[in-house]
């Protein structure tokens, strides 16, 4: 005996609409997931970067040398005209002190994943002993767990010389873990401080872009 089950037409239509709606939701969610992945990739369009292995801080400092910015990276100059910074295209300007420029890679919730800042020399910064100065400055700002990973003086920049330090700390507000490449750069006439930082879990992925920004940095 053969039994045939007949599904009412209305039920079939409802089932079809449900399947269609489910598919649309799935596509929308997938698009959202892709968008998040693209955002967190560092916005490195036009600049292939392989973040496979985390660079050793000392090796990163040893490898720093002046180099043109990747094609398509926008440029910004601090108000005094003393320093020029290139940034990855997907990074956007963020508010900072007067006289400075800052760019960041943030997600939809405003989290800083990457950060670039140029500030004219303001106080007691010196090329000699820069690392100690910077770490003391971070501690004075209230950062916690400030720890030097590598430092180097006599770093070549485009037409300039500098001193750099790579260090870890947790922010005073929120205790967010960051790693930074902080350099003081002396040009023929002016001096500035360049900060290239990333949230610690993002350092491996963003360090190549931060390094490229540092290598293209120009001080007058």
């Amino acid at each position, binding site marked *: 005996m053969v039994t045939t089950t007949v599904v009412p037409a209305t039920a079939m239509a409802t089932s079809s609409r449900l399947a269609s709606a*489910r*598919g649309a939701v*799935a596509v929308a*969610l*997938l698009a*959202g*997931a892709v968008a*998040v*992945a693209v955002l*967190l990739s560092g916005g490195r369009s036009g600049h292939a970067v392989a973040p496979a292995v985390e660079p050793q801080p000392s090796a990163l400092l040893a490898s720093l040398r002046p180099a043109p910015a990747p094609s398509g990276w926008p440029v910004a100059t601090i108000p005094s005209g003393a320093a020029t910074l290139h940034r990855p295209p997907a990074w956007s300007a*963020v*508010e*900072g*002190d*007067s*006289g*400075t420029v*800052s760019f*960041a890679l*943030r*997600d939809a*919730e*405003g*989290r*800083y*994943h990457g*950060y670039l*800042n*140029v*500030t*004219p*020399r*303001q*106080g*007691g*910064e010196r090329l000699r002993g820069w690392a100690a*100065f910077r770490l*003391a*400055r*971070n501690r004075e*700002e*209230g*950062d916690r767990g400030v720890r030097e990973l590598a430092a180097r003086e006599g770093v070549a920049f485009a037409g300039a010389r500098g001193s750099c330090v790579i260090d870890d*700390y947790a*922010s*005073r*507000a*929120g205790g*967010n*873990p*960051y790693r*930074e490449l*902080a350099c003081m750069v002396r040009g023929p006439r002016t001096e*500035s*401080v*360049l*900060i290239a*930082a990333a*949230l610690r879990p*993002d350092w491996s992925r963003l360090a190549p872009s931060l390094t490229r920004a540092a290598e293209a940095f120009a001080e007058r």
Partner: protein
Amino acid sequence: MRPTRIVAALLSAAAIGVGAAVPALAETHHHHHRHHSSAIPQHNGGDHDGDNNGGPSDGDGNI
């Protein structure tokens, strides 16, 4: 694996990636008032740095 499960897996992976980033919110403007003998004027009674809001420290060199 059904398509919906694949999407769910992708979303879970994305959520883990985002969740790994400790909140570092920007532009909430809960400024601390640093007392600088400042070479750079600080507007609005304090600066607008992300480092006041859980962001990274800037290159401000005044101690």
